[in-house]
């Protein structure tokens, strides 16, 4: 092994790991592309206040199935906040790809997949971060997804919520609002709780400063709900797409693994890190290359 280099293990190990990652990337790309979730379903997830409740939503059940098929492990819902969700993978298969890495977080592929799912499939601008990792000594791998607050407000609250806010601002009592919105008592109470969690209402059901702002600019906050079937209605289509992509990635990886191994001579190597330390030498390198191209 190269001194001072990274600890990839052997050449064969590095190539095998890259092959596995390519296969997973193929599956992830196919899955993300075919898994757009209708806003009404994303809203159900956003309105949950407890991990158990969120874990039982169709969206999360779907996510968990996708993660299995992408070979990213068994996803669990760990905690739920209005702008932040935490997910956990107990026996993380990604960690096992980096047997030689210790004391560092390694599951960037899982982190990126969560971010892509939230951004592209749930249409919520979000960022994801791995906050705990088995390879850095933690008991399990844990990932936090931070969602952009404005996007959450746009998606989480629907026309019925806006009507409730309007009626409350007009100082209508609960019975009048229930009658006007044709909601059951339980549903009305559930919606009030959600509005409190989102800091739209205070504990006395009065509009907060955020609530006032939301009401004032409510129309621009409004999210146009697109209606289309949930992706889990036809899992076979996603499965076929993942299988096709994985087979292609595997075939390509097998072909790539048979690429010849070159013996590179030291005299032919330009170490870019060394060259970059000296502007002059880098400029010389560029000028040499450009003149070679002109010839």
């Amino acid at each position, binding site marked *: *092994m*190269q001194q001072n*280099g*990274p*600890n*990839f293990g052997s*050449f064969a190990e*590095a*190539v095998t*790991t*890259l092959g596995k*990652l*390519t296969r*997973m*990337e193929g599956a992830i*790309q196919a899955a993300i592309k075919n898994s757009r979730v209708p806003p009404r379903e994303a809203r159900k997830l956003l309105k949950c206040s407890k991990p158990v409740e969120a874990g039982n939503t169709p969206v999360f059940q779907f996510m968990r199935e996708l993660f299995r098929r992408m070979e990213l492990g068994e996803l669990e819902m760990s905690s739920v906040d209005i702008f932040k969700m935490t997910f956990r993978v107990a026996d993380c298969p990604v960690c096992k790809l980096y047997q030689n*890495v210790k004391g*560092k*977080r*390694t599951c*960037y*592929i899982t*982190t*990126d997949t969560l*971010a892509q799912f939230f951004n592209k499939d749930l249409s919520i*601008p*979000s*960022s*994801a*971060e791995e906050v705990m990792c088995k*390879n850095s000594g933690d008991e399990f791998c844990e990932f936090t997804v*931070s969602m*952009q607050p404005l996007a959450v407000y746009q998606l989480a609250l629907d026309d019925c919520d806006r009507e409730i806010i309007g009626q409350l601002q007009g100082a209508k009592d609960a019975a009048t609002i229930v009658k006007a919105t044709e909601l059951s008592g339980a549903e009305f109470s559930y919606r009030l709780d959600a509005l409190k969690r989102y800091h739209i209402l205070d504990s006395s059901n009065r509009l907060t400063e955020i609530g006032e702002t939301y009401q004032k600019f409510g129309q621009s906050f409004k999210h146009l709900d697109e209606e289309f079937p949930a992706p889990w209605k036809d899992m076979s289509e996603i499965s076929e797409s993942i299988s096709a*992509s994985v087979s292609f*990635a595997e075939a*390509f990886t097998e072909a*790539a693994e048979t*690429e*010849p*191994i*070159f*013996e*590179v001579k*030291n005299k*032919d*190597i*330009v*170490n*870019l*890190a060394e*060259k*970059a*330390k000296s*502007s002059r030498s*880098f*400029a010389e390198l*560029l000028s040499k*290359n*450009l003149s*070679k191209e002109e010839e």
Partner: protein
Amino acid sequence: MKAQKYEDVQYIISQDGDGEPNLNLVWKDGGLFISLSGLFISDGDTWYELPVKDLVNVNVINEEPLQLRFKIPALDVVVMGKRAERLLALRHFLLPYIKREKDGSGIKGLVKFWAVGIMELDILARLMGEEESEIVQMIEEAKKGGLISEDGRVTEKGLALLSANERTVLKGSLG
């Protein structure tokens, strides 16, 4: 040194001076090779070595076609390939091995943008050439370090990171 071809790519090598590329090559055709010390890019003639120990980040800078930026101090190498999953796999393979930038220049940049009111994640990510998850981490670090207050102001400690000249310019832009 042994190297195996990983992917056919087009590439650009540019020197990076204080965040702005100041020298550029046109896109060139070549191959991306892996070795036990890192990566090679070759046009079939010269072998440009990118040692993993010198890498500070690998970013996706464009999705279609996929472009990866390998960053080492004072230098950027951008590669573009037809098989997105191959390049993404390479990125995820390398990230745990590389040393991430921790010289504080990122935080200083964040404080500058924050001071003029640019706080949106996507805009900051684009302006700073980082991924949003990195920006989130930087914001948390800046808050923990007392550079940005919880109510979103840049503190005196944060402003102290900037040069006197930068503070004067910022004051001017803030009116």
